[in-house]
């Protein structure tokens, strides 16, 4: 039985999962960052004085 036609869909599926992993990691990183970083007030934590 010829299964060559399956290669491209399988590779495309693997590619989709890879892209999903990237965006999932990006989302996790954004969630992990503190709110001060998102608000642009993280510098207030620095001991400036």
């Amino acid at each position, binding site marked *: 039985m010829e299964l060559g036609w399956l290669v491209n869909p399988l*590779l495309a599926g*693997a*590619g989709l999962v890879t*892209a999903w992993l990237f*965006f999932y990691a*990006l989302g996790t990183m*954004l969630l992990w960052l503190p709110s001060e*970083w998102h608000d642009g007030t993280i510098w207030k934590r620095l001991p400036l004085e």
Partner: protein
Amino acid sequence: MKPARQAGPPALELIENAVHLLRRTPAFDFLIWFAGAAPFTVALLYFWAEMSRAAFAEARLFTAAWGLTFLFVWLKTCQSVFAARLLARASAADDAPWTLQRWLRVLVIQAVLQPVVLFLLPVALLVTVPFAWVFAWSQNVVVLADRAAGRSGECLRLAWRQCRLWPGQNHSLLSYLSVAGFVAVLNAGIAVYHLPHLLKMLLGVETRLTLSPGALLNSTFIAVTIALGLLALDPLVKAAYALRCFHGQSRNNGEDLRARLQWLRRLTLLAGLVLFCLGPNSVRAAEPVPATPPPGTIEHGHLDRAITEVLRGASYTWREPRDWQLEEPTKHLSWLERLFKNIDQSLKRAMDSLKAPFKRLTDWLDQIFAKKGRPAPTTPKFSLNAGALVEFLMWLLVVVVAGILVWFAFRVWRPHAPTEEAPAAGPVVPDLHAEFVAADQLPEDGWLALATRLMDEGDLRLALRAFYLAALAHLARRELIRLAKFKSNRDYEGELRRRARARPELALTFAGTVREFDRVWYGSHEVDPQGILAFATQVEELCRA
């Protein structure tokens, strides 16, 4: 030195051609590109904002990431179709219709190869050296996916071969595109920052950016700015890499020659059409004309002189050896004599060039008088001696210029005679009835004096405004606020609170002053003598604080 064909076109030329290619691109192609870019950009920014702030973001992350994944593949597919159409236009090939099957083939290749780029690109950027190759490879995958006939392996191979080609050109191209990207992002940032301020100025709508300028550092603001800037640059990047692929592939298949021949064929057709439209007269016009000189033929000697004059111009003589300028007899002169001779010649040339307009004028006058029926005088005693006239005018000009210089020097260096002091004009008293009166129109003391005078005259409302402006002028002098027309009283309050954080009593006193002023000036509260005295005391306290 490498031949141009081996080295590839320079990066700047590539960008120039890319811009030209984009200008020739129909709106439909941009629509295809936009159909991919717009949903992904909006979704990415929404994803960013959601993950940055939303309370239940973690619960939605799984599905949101899948949504972004599909939109990412769709983005790359649309970009690939856009780039393939650009490539077809560059190679002057007839692009086959885009069937559903063709779209699907491109989509599958993008789904297989582009997700890898998402991981490779940041790593390459960190390592720095391989970034240009990885970036070129990802762009080549976008451009060449259509030519791989649905085989991702073939597309990978083609893209890899192209990305290894002309690394110097690729690096230069990336440098130029980086500068353009930086400018685009900067422009987007300025636009995004100023739009809310325009909204506030024109419609009075308050937004987060107008309430707090510190929101500039907000991560969503930065993401929006970068996304918009890169979005604006993306078509140029695609066109530049499409042309790079076109030139690279032409080394093997001679596609560039085919494109040029195609243009030549079109040009020939156009020329034939033009000749045909102009008819037999134009063809006859191309036949050799019998050699009968028309009236007013240019004399042979005159023509020679004109040619010599043109050839002595700076645009033709700059490559000539220097010695030709020196006439033969000057070669035996010393360098000082040659210098003076050169100065003399330069002055003569300058005088000749100045004489030329006068000569044209006198010629023109001669022609006019000859045409009027008065025969142009041929004997020297009646002729207008143009040379003498020009010389006289030149001398006159020299005398006038020298006179002006002497007069100017006299004005500058003469001892200044004591002049009577003009009575100093008093400061202009601002109209306090006017809607816009700036606090910097008078110094602090000026405002206080005006307020006292108005109090004496019984105009308490205006006196109160003068006191308030005195307070603003005082704070501005101490650099606790910066005066500006567009700022409201609340803006000044906020600014003072920020700048005088160490002295909260100052901000409190000013807040009370603002409240009292607003009640009287903008509200319907009447001010009585006790009220104005209390206000004046408050302003005095503010000045002392």
